[in-house]
């Protein structure tokens, strides 16, 4: 179907290949390619501030993507994602500091190691249903954070660990402008990988488990294997994202990676849409931009009556947390399929325009 240039105003798909295609029309493919090409010029066009915001969106969206495999596609929940993210960060910093391994290889290695750690916690979880898994990941969050504060050889204990800047074969990348390309490459590869995973037999098995695990089991899907697999994949992407974050910040500390951060990752995929790959990106952008925009609003309200009434400056962190919590609740109550669903509705409206009714 890639031959048509616009989405036809009906369903004309006749083969499974057409049903699982990534780009339904030529135009959508061209737009995607043009968008990526445009992003390649972003470091030249964006200011320092927007560049750092977009790097953050990129990094967190990879972690959120991993969580979405677990939550959105397999129907399990994890509230220990921040700990896995942090584990990837510490691993990559540790490996590149202590072994003659360039950062280029340390990042995927951190992903693999984090996936293995994820599997350790995932093995008890695989026998359990969603509810018990949540509690197991809660324990994972606390146990891992406790491990970081104990293992000084690994994470520096209470002192933040330092991480090397990104380098490949002796050539070191300096500054945000060059690092942007690294993040962009990782985002593209991860999103492509996961999109394709969902088109394969294994991806469909995960979705079948989410929709009805008993039926899935009866159809011959090995529940334990696939639950563990999705847990490992989630940890893998968290580890990759954490490693990218470590080499972006150049220091890794436990500060700010408690349970609140795990909730933030959950917020990203709920807002974006659980079970939607592009939605993950939208949700991450939303969650990263929300505090930034709140900061901006509070800056502009400075000195006004609202500022005095709420004393915005001192309370902005609390207001931010309240906003995140309320948005999670609101999305779950009123828009459980997230921004991705809204986007699909806009598309289907225009598909039939002007005869949408």
């Amino acid at each position, binding site marked *: 179907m890639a031959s048509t240039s616009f989405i036809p105003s009906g369903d004309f798909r006749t083969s499974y290949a057409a049903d699982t295609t990534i780009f339904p029309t030529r135009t959508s493919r061209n737009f995607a390619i043009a968008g990526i090409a445009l992003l390649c010029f972003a470091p030249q066009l964006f200011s320092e501030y927007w560049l750092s915001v977009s790097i953050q969106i990129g990094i967190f969206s990879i972690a959120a993507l991993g969580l979405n495999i677990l939550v959105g596609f397999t129907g399990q929940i994890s509230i220990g994602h921040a700990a896995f993210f942090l584990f990837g960060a510490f691993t990559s910093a540790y490996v590149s500091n202590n072994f003659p391994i360039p950062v280029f290889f340390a990042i995927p290695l951190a992903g693999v190691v984090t996936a293995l750690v994820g599997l350790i916690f995932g*093995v*008890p*979880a695989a026998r359990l249903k969603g*509810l*018990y898994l949540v509690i197991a990941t809660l324990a994972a969050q606390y146990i891992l954070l406790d491990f970081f504060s104990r293992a000084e050889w690994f994470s520096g204990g209470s002192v933040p660990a330092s991480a090397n800047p990104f380098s490949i074969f002796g050539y070191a990348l300096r500054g945000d402008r060059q690092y942007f390309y690294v993040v962009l490459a990782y985002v593209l590869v991860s999103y492509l990988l996961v999109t394709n995973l969902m088109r394969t037999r294994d991806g469909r098995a995960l979705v079948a488990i989410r929709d009805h695990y008993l039926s899935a089991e009866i159809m011959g899907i090995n529940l334990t294997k696939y639950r563990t697999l999705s847990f490992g994949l989630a940890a893998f992407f968290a580890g990759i994202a954490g490693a990218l974050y470590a080499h972006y910040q150049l220091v890794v500390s436990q500060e700010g990676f408690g349970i609140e951060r795990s909730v933030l990752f959950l917020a990203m995929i709920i807002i974006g849409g659980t079970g939607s790959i592009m939605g993950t990106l939208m949700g991450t952008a939303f969650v990263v931009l929300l505090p930034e925009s709140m900061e901006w609003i509070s800056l502009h309200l400075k000195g006004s009556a609202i500022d005095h009434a709420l004393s915005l400056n001192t309370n902005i962190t609390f207001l931010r947390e*309240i906003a995140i919590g309320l948005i999670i*609740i609101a999305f779950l109550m009123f828009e*459980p399929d997230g921004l991705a669903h809204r986007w699909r509705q806009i598309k289907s409206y225009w598909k039939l325009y002007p005869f949408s009714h």
Partner: protein
Amino acid sequence: MNAQFLIQLLVNGLVVGTLYGVVAMSFVLIYKATQVVNFAQGELLLVGAWVCWALLVKFQLPFWIGMPLTLVFMFVFGIAIQVVILRPMIGEPIISVIMVTIGLSTVFQAALKWIFGVNPQPFPDVFTSKSIDIFGLQIQTVYIMSLVVSLAMMVGMAWFFRASKYGLAMRATAFNQQVAQSLGISVKTVFAISWAISATVSAVAGVVVAVVNGVSSGLSAYGIKVFPAAILGGLDSIGGAVLGGVIIGLLENIAQYVDSQFLHWGNLYEIAPFYVLIIILMIKPYGLFGTRDIERI
């Protein structure tokens, strides 16, 4: 010396453990009646403690007025949460419901910091704090008060489920919602009441902890410790939750003893319950008294 230290820790563990038991009991109450895993249980403690603190300190009310007012407030508050937030979520997948309660806990946590500040506040002296001598052990009266209150709440709860009309309705609903409904039980009311009772009981526990340690956002840690306790006892067993709470409380203090006497790792006390949690999930996921899920197709 060491033996005395151990006994002191065990008494401490028993006191803290019964409090965990009370909170776990109110957690299991919600889970059993409404199938909601409440991640905001610790925040209910916190809300109760802060409200009571505000009534006693800001409004200068005596304790015997302030405490009942707190309980009335928490009763209404529990109903409000259920009606406004959780009733629309009935029928949604369990993970959505869990995430709603996680969202709630974030909101309460931040809102309370916003309203009352981040600094811990001492609780006004409700009882003249003394220690009394029992078998050569110095035990503070607040600890005894805490133990007595916890036990009273457990007995009250047992009576409620065995003898009262609403308690029986709640058990019926937990057993089978449709059958309960067909017998004329209003499932809606049962859901609301179970939240109200859970919030009230948690608030009592919150005030008790606050009297001993002062009010701070650290109180919500009790909500997290509920998970090891409830999993140990079995998620749907109220008696199991109480026992699980006591075991976790004792275990924490034994871990502290082992740590301070032999291992010197530091902080073992805080993390030990979570290791126990993982081990229980591995070997006996339905806990000591939980019913095993058997699904019919």
